[in-house]
């Protein structure tokens, strides 16, 4: 899966340091990398190596202590909180290890939420939700609440929610971490479909090297907040 096209995400010496009393914890410590549009990248590394922190920086959920994060030519570090919210709404979709569906809302309402924030018209919203749920194969479960669904279904719902605003980047933080390998494979197949059919750039954090090798076009290794090595295309 080679993408020769333009750069979707570029980080330039990005740092995220946490102040813990007198000392600082360099969760992300000077990372420069590039991801091309439509690329499927896996972020690997031991626990505490800074994978989630880097992903949150790319997601615009967190701000770097130093450095730049350029997405589609714009530096996230320079955006105000309103602009960052808009960026999260329209440009990225996120999937988490713990699904993070809102327990009081039905599946449909959960998926609809990002479209509400994006101020999409009601009628159009319904259509987006329907299409998104169809893509992950959950059309039959729209009125169920998260507690009534299996982990795999919940993660598919979370994926549908991440896709509803048709973002160009999908960020997944250990999406299979809470799933058995069969269900995990289902999810990864869906993610690959997003990458293939929708031409989305995918950045996936994972512990499992085997999965990364199977699905990702490229592996990036982190260690203590720094780049440990770049696996090229297989």
């Amino acid at each position, binding site marked *: 899966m080679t993408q020769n096209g333009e750069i979707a995400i570029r980080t330039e010496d990005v740092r995220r340091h946490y102040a813990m009393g007198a000392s600082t914890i360099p969760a992300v410590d000077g990372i420069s990398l590039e991801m091309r549009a439509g690329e499927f990248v896996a972020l690997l590394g031991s626990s505490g190596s800074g994978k989630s922190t880097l992903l949150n920086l790319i997601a615009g*959920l967190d701000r770097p202590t130093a450095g730049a994060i350029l997405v589609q030519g714009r530096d996230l570090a320079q955006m105000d*909180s*309103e602009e960052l*919210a808009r960026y*999260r709404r*329209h440009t990225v979709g996120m999937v988490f290890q713990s699904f*993070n569906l*809102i327990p*009081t809302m039905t599946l449909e309402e959960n998926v609809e939420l990002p479209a509400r924030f994006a101020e999409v018209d009601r009628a159009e919203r319904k259509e987006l939700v329907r299409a998104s749920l169809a893509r992950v194969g959950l059309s039959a479960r729209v009125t169920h609440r998260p507690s009534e669904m299996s982990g795999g279904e919940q993660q598919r719902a979370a994926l549908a929610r991440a896709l509803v605003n048709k973002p160009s980047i999908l960020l997944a933080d250990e999406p299979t971490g809470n799933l058995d390998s069969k269900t995990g494979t289902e999810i990864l197949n869906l993610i690959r479909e997003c990458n293939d059919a929708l031409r989305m750039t995918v950045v996936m954090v994972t512990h499992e090297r085997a999965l990364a090798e199977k699905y990702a076009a490229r592996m990036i290794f982190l260690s203590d907040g720094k780049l440990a090595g770049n696996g090229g295309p297989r």
Partner: protein
Amino acid sequence: MKIQDLLELAGRNLRESKLRNSLTTLGIGVGVASLVAMLSLGVGLQELASNRLTRSGLFDQIAVYSRPEFRGFRSGEGGDRENPNRGRDLRPLDKAARLEIEKLPNVVEVYPEIRFTSEVRFGEKSQFTYVGGLTPSAKASDAFEKMQGTFFTSPNAEEVILQTRFAKTLADKPEDLLGHDVTLRYAERQALSSGASGGGSPAKKADAAGDSGGEGFSVVRRERNVRVVGIIETEPFGGMRSFGRGGIFIPLNLAEKLAPMGSSSSVRELLRTSASATTFQTLMVRMASPTHVMAAEKAIEDMGFSTFSIMEAMRNLRRFFAVLDLFLGIFGSVALAVASLGIINTLVMSVLERRREIGIMKALGASDRDVRRLFFAEAGSMGLLGGLLGVALGWVIGKAINFGTNIYLARQEFPPEKIWSVPWWLVAGAIGFAVLVSLAAGLYPASRAAKLDPVKALRYE
């Protein structure tokens, strides 16, 4: 986020923890209810008092007198005390003055207070009493509400209304007098023009002392039959409007026509003015509403007359009501302030509980502003619901108090009263106030929610 979506989300969040939110809303409701209850009690009492007093005809009245002679008013010529001509500087309360006062803004009517003694005869019986003149507007007095017979048929009718107390001196059963004529015997002042005396039999002649001109007047004895049309229990306006007691009443126009000498009290005043130019001892001025009394009083005093009004004298009463309203309002607001603490508590709890949810919403693209507005919408909705509930509750409490009061009044043999009034501005104001207080209470929780760091909120604990 669009307002509609905001309200929808707020609504579903409120429904999600029903018990807690409805308790909070109930708290606001109780606060608003106590505010409404207190204020409508104040308003009701005030309305009751002012309706009573307005109907009593006392508060829109100004009594106008000519200035007492012993008090200088224009120039402070203190050495003039012995000068007999000093009185000439005084402005007479005459027809011209009456016209001038009538032209003041918001004056409804100006009429002289006429009261004179007369002998009243019915058949064999005869009694002396005071005769009072009544304007057509006096009909509004509650004294005529339960009268026997009717009010005067016209402003000039030769008719009389008796007080029961006086009527009893003429007949054993006062109602027997209705429809019959009684005879008034009174003294009338009559101008002497070129020596020719007016009709009637002159009983007494007097030259106007101090008047160099040959003008003078005579006092003649007169008789006049008037028909009894009504009998009243109490004096109109509690006897206070005319500041004097009368046993019987005739239309004011009739009383003026009779021009009895009794309408001038002091002989000196009688003598000072020429007989042809009528002066009044007291003019009563009725204003369109009590609010106009002060201004008119000032204008009339500037003309050079003395005035008296209950309105002026009762200023303190109105101040009392203003203070009462204020206190009742503060008292009611305390309950609402306590309720607002409930809102703060509920929302802060909610922010803590929904940390993760807030984090998720932010990850999905909600801005800080969206989150803040969502919490505001929740606070405002609770305020609105609480306000509506409170107004309803307050209204019911008011009804209950009113009901209880009337049972008490009935036991004391008083007629029922409406001591409770919930005007629309109070309803709207209370609901608006509840929403405002709730929004203010939501300020802190909402900004806390908005500032929440999504990364921390999403880190699974």
